[in-house]
């Protein structure tokens, strides 16, 4: 038996072994969905799908869930988590829209406009921004930006007038959106730069030969040509944005609240909570039946959103293949 293992392996045995190991990963993904869904089932059992809607008092419902430790009554499972979904959507939307604009401009800058010396500095800087851990972004946010906003940008008038509804502590939508934008922009820059440099230069040269100035040529030809890449970058960045948990938990103000545009500038100073940051907030309650099911439900929603975005990104990148010279 040992002799058989020591001789050079026949290909079919190696193929089957390697294939089995590779399928372990698929099994892991399936297990991920199954385990999380089974833990989240009580939430759906008692609420159906309507837990994503609004209407209840989220914090009171969570307190009720935390208080009920064993065999809770069915009423305890009642949850309306729309504030979390709103928080996720609005932070991600602002971050992706801002980030996409910045990313396209920066990529054009890096690939077309910057002289080689400047490019040699900018590219490592972008790579650095991409590799800073999220907890360091959160640390700078909570120790530098939040006090700055609280002391300099939020007026006393705003604090007093909103006192009855919510405390303005500086952390909230504004700081969260700004830091989230900085976090997701490098990803988009990487993708868009790669796509920009894969477009055949003769296309742009043709436009310049027809009389467009270089910048216009880029706009008219290259940017239009990489539209799939821009969409893919946006999709990837959205997936990253909705999944960001720790940084948002540190700077978003720690209170579940739906920022109200009607409050004017204070809209950006009002606290919020997202699905991912709620998971971090309530991580101690994962063993309790009601709160645990709720948190697993949030995770399941995030998982499916990430799936959907992944599939969309893949579908959108397919037309890109014809521009790439390798792979």
């Amino acid at each position, binding site marked *: 038996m040992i002799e058989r293992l020591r001789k*050079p*392996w026949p290909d079919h045995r*190696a*193929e089957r072994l*390697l*294939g089995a*190991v*590779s399928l*372990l*990963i698929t099994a892991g*993904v399936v297990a*991920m969905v199954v385990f*999380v869904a089974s833990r989240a089932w009580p939430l759906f059992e008692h609420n159906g799908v309507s837990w994503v809607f609004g209407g209840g008092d989220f914090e009171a419902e969570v307190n009720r869930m935390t208080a009920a430790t064993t065999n809770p009554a069915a009423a305890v499972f009642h949850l309306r988590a729309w504030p979390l979904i709103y928080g996720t959507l609005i932070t991600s939307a602002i971050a992706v829209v801002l980030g996409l604009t*910045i990313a396209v401009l*920066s990529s054009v*800058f890096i*690939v077309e*406009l*910057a002289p080689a010396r400047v490019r040699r500095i*900018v*590219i490592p*800087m972008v790579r*650095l*921004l*991409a*590799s800073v*851990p*999220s*907890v*360091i972004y959160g*640390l*700078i946010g*909570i*120790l530098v930006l939040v006090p700055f906003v609280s002391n300099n940008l939020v007026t006393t008038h705003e604090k007093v007038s909103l006192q009855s509804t919510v405390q303005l502590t500086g952390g909230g939508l504004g700081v969260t959106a700004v830091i989230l934008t900085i976090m997701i*922009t490098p*990803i988009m820059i990487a*993708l868009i730069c*790669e796509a920009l*440099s*894969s477009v055949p230069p003769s296309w742009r040269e043709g436009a310049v030969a027809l009389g467009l*100035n270089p*910048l*216009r040529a880029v706009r008219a030809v290259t940017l239009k040509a990489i539209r799939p890449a821009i969409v893919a970058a946006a999709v*990837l960045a959205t*997936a990253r944005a909705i*999944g*960001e*948990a*720790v940084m948002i*938990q*540190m700077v978003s103000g720690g209170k579940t609240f739906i920022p109200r545009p009607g409050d004017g500038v204070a809209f950006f100073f009002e606290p919020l909570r997202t699905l991912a940051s709620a998971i*971090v907030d309530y991580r101690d309650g994962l063993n309790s039946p009601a709160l645990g099911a709720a948190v697993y439900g949030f*995770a399941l929603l*995030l*998982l499916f959103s*990430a*799936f959907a975005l992944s599939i969309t*990104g893949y579908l959108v990148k397919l037309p890109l293949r014809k521009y790439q*010279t*390798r792979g």
Partner: protein
Amino acid sequence: MSWRWGDRLVLVAAWTVGISLCVIAAAIVLYMGYRGIEYLRPGLIFSRPSADQAGSGGFLDPLLGTIILTVIGIVLAIPLALSSAVWITEYGRPSWLARVVESSIEIVAGTPDIVIAIFGLAIFQTSLFAPFSFTAEGGGVYGNSFIAAGAMMSLLALPPIYTATRDGLQAVPGHQREAAFALGKTRITTIRRVLLPSVRSNIATGATLGISRIIGSTAIVLLLLGSTLRIEAQGSFPGINVLRGTGSSLTSYIYENSPAGEGGAPQKAYAAAFLLLIFVLLLNLLVDRIGRAHADSSGLAPIGAVV
């Protein structure tokens, strides 16, 4: 050259944005450096955390925790990633199965860290996996241990190693394989002796990117490693007892010491954050070095390797 002022505006905007990004990146590094030098003392690196954070005590335990997690994560991820990359590029039959595996790895790559952490808890809190983590007297499985966190860390490191190895294998010219076959070697032998050695630098790049992701992840540590600051072993079997126990990592240490956690000592948080940033920067430089030693054909590939 008479540009419309709309175009001039875009030109100015592009330059501003590009330079601002550099300024922001430099500001982050410089500020963390300033605070880090202010608060980082060599004593901190080598002393263990004390119960009272506002007093003395450093971050030896979190540092060890980060190292243990990284080792477990990479040790688990490399065989998985290499096997899949080799299977998909060299064998890959039936093709629908290969697509399934490739999609699974992309799904893992796109899953947020926090969901991977939740998945880890869902698995390790079942009684099947009780020996791998901290078990309370009443039989409640906490699901927190280095093994649990390390296993999930391997999922983080898997996609970079897989992508880098797969790209490297696809870039090996066909005549190398054909020469090996002409000499009578089986496929698996050519893989072992010819192909894998030639993609060593790709594997190294992927592993370094994976390590970068592991040491920067906080969510998995917070959920799967408990909120103890010191390493607490579980059981008495030497070696395994630490793996089964709980502890902390640099990232969770930073989190706990910031106002978001217990909040007592922002200075320690700054010091640990500076250390973490230095590690990440060094890893970045390493990736750069490896990338340059085996120069790629496409000039801007180093940026793409970040994703």
